[in-house]
């Protein structure tokens, strides 16, 4: 099915204070910056429902082909038959709101 199922290899490295300190020192040396402690601020959500307006996703793998088959009849299906209920909902990214999600669409 056209959804991401693999786990990431990005887990498993420690997040200890000492380790973070080393990383901060390295980056600070490179970028010339003084770094604040991680997680120093988590701002509140402004507005209700806003979090749902920003997700953006992509078709992946077999979902693209499957979707094309299921809904290939396009407008005719829309007006004369039912919805393509077998169509899967793709997974989306989760880094928060991005411009493309807000730009031309409203969601």
């Amino acid at each position, binding site marked *: 099915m056209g*959804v991401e199922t693999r*786990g*990431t*290899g*990005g*887990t498993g*490295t420690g*997040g200890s204070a000492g380790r*973070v300190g080393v*990383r*901060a020192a390295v*980056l600070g040396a*490179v*970028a010339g*910056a003084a*770094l*604040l402690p*991680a*997680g*120093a601020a988590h*701002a*509140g*959500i*402004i*507005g*209700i*429902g*806003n*979090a*749902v*307006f*920003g997700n*953006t996703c*992509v*078709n992946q793998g077999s*979902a693209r082909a499957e979707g*094309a088959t299921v*809904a290939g009849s396009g*407008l005719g299906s*829309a*007006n004369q038959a*039912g*919805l393509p209920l077998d*169509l*899967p*909902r*793709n997974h*989306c990214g*989760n*880094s*928060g*709101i*991005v*411009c*493309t999600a*807000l730009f*031309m*669409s*409203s*969601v």
Partner: protein
Amino acid sequence: MTGLTTAGTPVGERAVTGLLSLSGRALPLLRQWVGSDPGCGVARALLALATGDRWDDTVLKEQLVIAHRDALAAGEREASLVYGVFLHTHRQYRLTADHLMGHFDRWPADEQAGLMLGAFSECGDAAYRAHGEALTERQAALAGPESWPWTSWLAVTRAEQGRAREAHTLAGRALALYPRSGVAAHALAHAEHELGAGRDSIDFLDEWLRADPRAVQSRHLNWHAALHSIACGDFPDARRRADTALARTDVGMRAATNWRLLLAGQTPAGRSDPDHIRELLAAPGGTAEIFHTFNLALALAVEAATDDLRILARRAAADERPDYRDVLAPVVRALAEITAGRPRAAVELLTGLGDKAERIGGVRVEREIIQDTLARALVDAGEPARAAGLLHHRTTTRRHHAYEDLLLSPRPPADIPV
């Protein structure tokens, strides 16, 4: 029955206007519309479009089956619109775009269908993006210059095409027609970023948000204001916005702010929890979309999480998707090299990328951070002249470019007075 407001305007009309303008009243009005007219398929579908991301699959399908049934009774346009909403809410953006092309052929300049135009860019396919731009141009022409929604969407298109002055004019026209057009306000923020408007743009965004603090884009427009603050050297303001306006979930916007601050030698705002970033990457769909994955990589870079970046880069390099292999992987590797204190290696990776960087997704303003990173790496690698050449178009065309000046500074000051 359609409910009426005290002013006599049907609630459905107000709900659609609220959605088109990204008003903070959009969701309450949509709910009110569905409540007062439960047999209106379009109302139910637009509510699904706006809030379906938080519904589970079963609820979403149930609601849209009801909406489609009711829309079929209302007419072909309504049924087609609901069908498009079904595809869009299932994040089948390519199919949504295909459907919209047929829909607009039959119902030109349909504003409600315009709410889904983002599908063309969210496909992650340059050809579809171009189709979407051409379609927007055609529909805007058909709608005429008095249509604020289409003028707003055309402004967006021009901004993304790099036609900043046209985008600026169009956004201004849309806002003159309807001052609460959130799409136009957003397009204006993009155009003014390219023009280096600085404080003027910040003041506009603050005033615009004051009138509707719950506007759909409030966090995002605050982020744009933070970028303007960075551009004109007001780093405390950028940090304040990141710390007070962004939500915990806004990992990408926070990272994009903080990485810029770090590149310019400034103190970052409060950061994301590294474990939270790792959880997001590990979650189902965590790397499903290239631009979100890139944003999470930036968040790792802010944490100087070199090991995590190397692992993510290897994973991207092994991905079957060419954009991940050819574009994301070298960018993430470059971020890892920078955090490891190896700017020369980052220069080689990012220079080799060239125009392929566009394939990392997002929009111009968001992708620009790759160029910023290369400029910083060039300076740190002892090649300030190449860095200056890279940013020449920005330092010569943007009125405010304190940020670029700092990127090109061999030894960035720890802070600069505002």
